[in-house]
């Protein structure tokens, strides 16, 4: 056992027992971040803030929510929205954050792609990030079911039905997921469990892993420069803060992020209080009705691009392409065959590839919501084929060319 002295204060007392000073150094004051970054590097902390909002408002909502097909709709729309003090606020914050968090995630992802932050030692950051994306998607889908409105019910019908297309085990799998032959009380209950228990636990664990995976390769920077972090940290600690190419996570980096979070919160609360329909579809304020199919069934905006890939082909092929689209970004670090780590605007063909990919995904998103009639179907097919080609064929080809050109 270590030797304990009489502490000269609360910090010292804690430090002797928990090593809080070293802990703060490791996690905060001597956790080094490159200086040359722009506001896109604030997205990570904004995401963490959004997750905290989702977690806390979620806990408040669970206090009054009832996972029962006979009670769910009214527990949300009557009890929470109208009877509980500020219940509407927690629900609007939760619903809008669930949608906005995807916008920030997409920005975070495309920042990573643009600056090549998934390469050369940063593969695990990318993969754990993608894992978070998939987990958030599962959270979003399971959460969307809980108010038990028309879209909750019919989205659950359509999405669980997709698993029926898996060869051999399809129909049994659908039944197993639903817990019944049709979407019903058992389905609602198990998705409630997933949404409020299992998935949040896994999400928290993967967020911790995502941060951990950053520690060794460090955060990338705006010019994708390879830094000697030890050397730069020495400069910083020696007082040459201006010359050093790094800053401390706390307070240097976070003070900037807190400023960005405040700005973001103005935008977020504008959406929460004045412009929420995009995140809380009006159709979902109609109670679930198994006998009345809504004229248009569509997923939330952040799933539209992959949903459009599903619709872009005949059923079996569409399902297979949809499956590929869901996982293709996981292997991005290995599809990019070039060892050049640089921002896209320094990489020629890759730059073109980046913007084409972004535009293609936007086209998929927009057409994913339109009714599948006439020319819309052709556009779906073309954009879907282009998406798959861009990732599976074109990216490896242009990055192999890039590697060869460098030699």
């Amino acid at each position, binding site marked *: 056992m270590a030797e304990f002295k009489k502490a000269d204060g609360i910090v010292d007392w804690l430090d002797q027992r928990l090593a809080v000073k070293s802990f703060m150094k490791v996690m905060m004051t001597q956790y080094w971040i490159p*200086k040359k970054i*722009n*506001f*896109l590097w604030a997205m990570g902390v904004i995401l963490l803030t959004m997750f905290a909002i989702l977690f806390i408002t979620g806990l408040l909502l669970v206090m009054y929510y009832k996972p029962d097909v006979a009670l769910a709709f*009214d527990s949300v*729309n*009557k009890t929470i*929205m*109208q009877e509980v003090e500020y219940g*509407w*606020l927690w629900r*609007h914050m939760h619903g809008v954050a669930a949608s906005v968090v995807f*916008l920030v995630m997409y*920005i975070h992802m495309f920042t990573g792609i643009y600056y090549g932050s998934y390469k050369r030692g940063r593969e695990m950051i990318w993969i754990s990030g993608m894992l978070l994306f998939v987990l958030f998607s599962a959270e979003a889908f399971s959460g969307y079911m809980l108010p038990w409105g028309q879209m909750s019910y019919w989205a659950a019908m359509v999405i669980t039905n997709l698993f029926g297309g898996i060869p051999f085990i399809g129909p049994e799998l659908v039944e197993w997921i639903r817990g019944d032959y049709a979407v019903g009380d058992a389905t609602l209950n198990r998705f409630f469990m997933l949404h409020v228990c299992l998935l949040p636990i896994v999400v928290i664990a993967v967020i911790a892993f995502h941060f951990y995976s950053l520690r060794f390769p460090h955060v990338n920077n705006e010019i994708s420069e390879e830094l000697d972090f030890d050397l730069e940290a020495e400069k910083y600690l020696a007082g040459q*803060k*201006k010359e050093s190419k790094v*800053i401390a996570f706390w*307070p*240097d980096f976070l*003070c*900037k992020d*807190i*400023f960005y*979070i*405040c*700005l973001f*919160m*103005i935008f977020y*609360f*504008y959406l*929460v*209080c*004045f412009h929420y*329909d*995009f995140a809380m579809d*009006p*159709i979902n*304020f*109609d*109670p679930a009705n198994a006998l009345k199919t809504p*004229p*248009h069934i*569509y997923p939330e*905006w952040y799933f*539209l691009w992959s949903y459009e890939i599903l619709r872009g082909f005949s059923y079996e092929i569409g399902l297979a392409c949809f499956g590929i689209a869901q996982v293709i970004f996981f292997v991005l670090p290995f599809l990019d065959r070039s060892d050049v780590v640089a921002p896209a605007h320094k990489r020629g063909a890759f730059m073109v590839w980046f913007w084409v990919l*972004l535009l293609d995904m*936007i086209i998929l*998103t*927009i057409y994913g*919501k*339109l*009714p599948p009639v006439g020319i819309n179907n052709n556009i779906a097919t073309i954009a879907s084929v282009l998406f798959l080609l861009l990732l599976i064929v074109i990216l490896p080809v242009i990055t192999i060319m890039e590697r060869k050109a460098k030699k």
Partner: protein
Amino acid sequence: MREFKIFLVLVIFTGIVYWGVEPYAHSQMNEHTSAVNFDFKAEDINQAKVELEKAMNSDKTGAEKEKDIEFAKMQLKDYEQLWANVDKIASLKADVSNGKEAFELNCASCHRASFDGFNDADDSISAYGIIYPDLSTAGAIYDDKFLMAISLNPALAMKNHKKYNEQNPHPMLTAFLEEDGSISEENAQSVADIVAYLKSIGNKALLSEQEKLAKEINASKMSDEDKQKAIELSKHRLVFEHACARCHDVKYDKLFAKINANDLAAYMGSIPPDLSMVIRAKGEEYLNKFLNDTQKQLAGTAMPRVGLNAHSQEEVISYLSAVGDSKKAERESLGIKIMIYFAVMAVLAFLWKKAIWKDLH
């Protein structure tokens, strides 16, 4: 400067996605319809023309298309005739006391006007178990010309005429029209008088009910401000009760349809929906258009056009907002405060950042 450019790119792309999945997608998914119009003559003839055009441009072929066009042409002709008759009635000088007599003779066997002592209506004659509306407040709630139109041809006026024909007549039977669809001077005068009579008692009936409710509220132990609000809401609710609550529940306000659900289902084809959250589900604009002309907004719906005048339609929508979106005022006032809070925090955070980064640049 560079950061600003990046931000601009972000805003533009986010804006495009938003525009695509919200306004643009909804404009593609929902049919565009003309604005609310309380001139029912213009509204109906215009809409009949739109439907005729649709029938002529439809993808259908052969006999089916011919039939649709034939129907649409008939419909246009019927509406033109109906509203021409109404114009004729509206131009007459009406007499309230004659109207009361005509009401007793023509209407009182099915309809009550309990405010003025008409209570002899026989509900048991309804084929569906439907309760016929008490017309005490009809003159205040419904459009005058609509009341004339419904006296002549209820199915056409309520726009559920596609459901009815000679074998399956509309449950409201009227006999003011001649065989050829024209109206005699005598009958026109009767209808004019009846509507004048309904108007003469309508506002009084509504006012007396409002006063009764206000009295109850004033007797309760609420603060004066709450009393004011409750009285305001009771006025909205009253119009809704008269106009909508024979068929629709609003269970969040403990308001339940007066007609038995099974009878309603048999009559309408399905149970009319509970309207507690309809303001969030459909929105004010949709509801306004829908109430104004049900078939225009949702072709084939079983819901009749009930002929509310502009004021009572406003009352109904205020009521639905009060029930389904009760926290609107709180949401909007709190929203501004939170945004101001974060704006102040942003300024403080920026100053703090500047202080710290002084050493770093």
